[in-house]
């Protein structure tokens, strides 16, 4: 069961695209395009204020229509991931407002929005404990694991689709979200594959930051 396509699609990102946001990024992974913006730390509303740490508010905006229950599910996933990677106890009684806007659905929306939020946080200069990289992989009908599937392979139908996110220190699992049913060994194999693929994304982060500061230093 070799995996023919084991590379991550082309990654492109442009940071500080929004002038008024503290951190913002337009991120694209293959033809999935997501925009993320970070406003904060700002003054929290009275009832939302936490006395010992920063309150994180996250809104996920779909391309068309109003955010529904599915978007609320995604919001909770990304929000608890941010709660882990941002050092929230350094800014008690404040709030940060993170917005994720879907621009184009190329199949792996959840992974792309997590990577976009991580880049936006990098751009905003908030204190982070570690970085996070999310990878999606798909097990098609013939039990082949396809990494970072594009929308056409997803539309063909699949047995299962996994999204894993790893931290940059020990590459441990931070977030996992799966659809579909698959035997345990295949699940384990998919996770290990995604873990290796997350290195590609961490290197991309390093280059993005390098590119950003290089033209500023010139």
């Amino acid at each position: 069961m070799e995996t023919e396509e084991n590379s991550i699609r082309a990654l492109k990102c442009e940071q500080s695209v929004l002038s008024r946001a503290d951190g913002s990024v337009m991120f694209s992974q293959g033809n999935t395009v997501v925009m993320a913006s970070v406003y904060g730390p700002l003054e929290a509303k009275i009832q939302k204020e936490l006395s010992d740490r920063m309150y994180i508010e996250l809104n996920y905006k779909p391309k068309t229509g109003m955010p529904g229950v599915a978007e609320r599910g995604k919001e909770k996933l990304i929000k608890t991931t941010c709660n882990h990677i941002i050092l929230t106890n350094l800014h008690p009684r404040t709030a940060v407002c993170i917005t994720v806007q879907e621009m184009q659905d190329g199949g792996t929306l959840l992974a792309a929005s997590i990577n976009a939020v991580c880049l936006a946080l990098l751009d905003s200069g908030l204190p982070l404990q570690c970085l996070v990289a999310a990878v999606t992989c798909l097990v098609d009908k013939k039990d082949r694991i396809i990494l970072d599937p594009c929308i056409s392979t997803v539309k063909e139908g699949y047995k299962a689709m996994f999204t894993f996110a790893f931290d940059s220190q020990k590459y441990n699992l931070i977030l996992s979200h799966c659809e579909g049913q698959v035997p345990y060994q295949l699940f384990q194999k998919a996770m290990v594959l995604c873990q290796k693929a997350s290195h590609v994304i961490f290197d991309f982060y390093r280059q993005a930051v390098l590119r950003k500061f290089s033209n500023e230093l010139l």
Partner: protein
Amino acid sequence: MATDHKTLQPLEFYKTFLDRKSRPDGRKLLEFRKMTLNAGSIGTADGSAIVKCGNTTVICGIKAELAAPEREEPSKGFIIPNVTLPSLCSSQIKSGPPGETAQAATQFIAELVNNNIIMDLETLCIKVSKWAWVLHCDLLCINLDGSLLDACVMALVAALKNLKLPIVSYDEEMDKLISNPDEKMGFDTIKQPVTSTFSLFDNGILISDPTFEEEQLAAGLTSITMEGTSVTHMYKPGGCTLDEKQVKKLIQQSELKTKEVARLIEEACSSSIAER
């Protein structure tokens, strides 16, 4: 004095228990709470079940209706789950529009149902692109004491097994549905996924089937849904990290619970009340 310590310094109070590998309610770290299941207890619902995992109690009531299937999937019926947390179930839940926990739980159950894990939606279709069954599964949590997803999935599966629908046939020329009320269609052959929730502490300790306080104090939460030996869903919404060893340990632990619950559901559907 213990109750003061618990309210003033909840985390330290709990850590003293964790160091001795036990928990305030006397359970070991990876031990599940007592589960009770009672199928078919609501007369007005087509299928119903009440599940009690420890103190967390969820009632699932299914009402069936008829509707035309969608154009893109003309041969599929619908299962519409809806998890409601009334303010009756815990002091933290305010009355008003559903909060984040309720919507996240509804989304979790919707994903489980939509990709044919529990049952094939084609069986709900009566006449392709004309008539299909719509099952409104309402999951009502009446006491929230942690690991809500475990109780919801078990209640939904038990209620679906308990569901009885009249057999309906489509009459071509009269363009009408004929149903003979005495014959009932059961759904005993559906697959039975089982969810087990664990909460993770930053010093690497994993505990299973957390209560409401344990969920608040924990650094992370994960729910693994399995069916037999295959993994259906590993839902880990962020929180502290897990390495492969820990993931393997969690999956073995939830395999144990899967057998336990499968037997419980079998017992419940034969007699009406079962306990472990």
